[in-house]
């Protein structure tokens, strides 16, 4: 019976992942009228950039999946705060420095690494490093390092939009604060759901399946970006 319920939960997650994959253009970059706004805005615009930062986080399933993986087995609020701080620290450093210093990287490679970060955390959740290699990399350090890559991705995408130098610092900090707000919103929601889920009897078994699915989603993200890289490099 347990097995059956786990299967139903797993199918639900796969369907969700599928639905998300159907709209990657929506979920990932900054597009459409938002992009036009960013390119046409000179001077400080705190409100809009706050919103765009938050929107980018809330609708960016690659960031969300990583955060989900990070908090999946954290039972103490203290630990949640610690890991989320490591992640925020990482992506803030590269977001701010990246845009201000004009660092650019190939967005496909960065997004592939972000996909890898999702797969890494799921594998770590399954205790895969200890089981297979007898050694687990320091999770706090890994979350910080992958945070750096997530921020680098944000910086690369913002720069593609030709940010005006006028009011850049204010807009950038606004965007960054927005990212943290969006993360907080998404985090609260996920934490609430996962707390409810943990109280159900089948959680332990379902949690393993869920992490295998997150691992799978991470692989898909990585493969998609790598294909994009090779196709657009030759084009």
């Amino acid at each position, binding site marked *: 019976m347990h097995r059956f319920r786990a299967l139903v939960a797993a199918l639900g997650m796969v369907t969700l992942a599928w639905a998300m994959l*159907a709209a990657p253009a929506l979920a990932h970059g900054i597009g459409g009228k938002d992009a036009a706004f960013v390119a046409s805005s*000179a001077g400080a615009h705190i409100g809009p950039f706050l919103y765009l930062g938050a929107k980018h986080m809330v609708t960016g399933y690659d960031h969300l999946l990583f955060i989900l993986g990070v908090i999946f087995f954290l039972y103490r609020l203290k630990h949640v705060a610690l890991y989320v701080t490591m992640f925020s620290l990482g992506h803030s450093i590269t977001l701010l420095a990246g845009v201000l210093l004009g660092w650019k990287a190939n967005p496909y490679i960065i997004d592939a690494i972000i996909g890898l970060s999702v797969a890494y955390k799921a594998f770590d959740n399954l205790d*895969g490093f200890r*089981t297979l290699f007898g050694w687990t990399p320091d999770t706090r350090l890994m979350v910080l390092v992958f945070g750096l890559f997530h921020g680098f991705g944000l910086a690369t995408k913002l720069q593609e939009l030709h940010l005006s*130098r006028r009011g850049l610092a204010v807009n950038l900090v606004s965007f960054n604060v927005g990212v943290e707000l969006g993360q907080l919103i998404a985090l609260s929601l996920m934490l609430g759901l996962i707390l409810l889920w943990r109280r159900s009897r089948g959680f332990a078994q379902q949690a*393993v399946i869920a992490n*295998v699915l997150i691992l799978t989603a991470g692989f898909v993200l990585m*493969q*998609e970006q790598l294909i994009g890289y090779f196709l657009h490099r030759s084009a």
Partner: protein
Amino acid sequence: MTAASEGHAANPPSKGRLALLTAGGLVVASLITVCAVLPAEFHMDPTGFGKATGLMGLSAAPETTSAPASAAAKPGAPQILAREYPAPFRTDTIDIPLKAEGEIEYKVKMKAGQTLIYSWSVAAPPEEFYSDFHSQEWPQKGPKEVVVSHKVGVGVGGNGAMTAPFDGIHGWYLQNQSEKPVTVHLKISGFYDLLPGGQPPA
């Protein structure tokens, strides 16, 4: 839950099972990528799954709809390459001054099918001048304003031609993002009417 399991599954799978699950995840991921992502995102369909499920349509769509409405070039339909107009064409050279961080809409009035050619340039830092070349329906026919953008982005000049997709006002939104005043030099020729002050008719 004990603190010992903090951060990891309380019941991690055994070595063999973990290897199986990870390999399974990789296989399923590759299947999703090859069957669904490739056709939907990159318009490649090695398995035929994309065609069978209509996923190919997702990636083909932008190519057929991204052309501006004015193009209306149906394959097979003869494209109109020459047109005649009742009056001779006109030519105007206009200098548009813009203050530091200033902006303006400069538009002309045209009927559907009328053509103009243009060249414009501005001495501004290339990353600090933004323009949006577009057509706007006028007078407004419905509750929704119809606007077609021809070219949007940063840059300090452009040369080209445009045939009006509909009766309306057509031209540029120009925005100086630099801290110095600049002047846009615009030269247009063709079939159109100037608007007083570049503003829409009342």
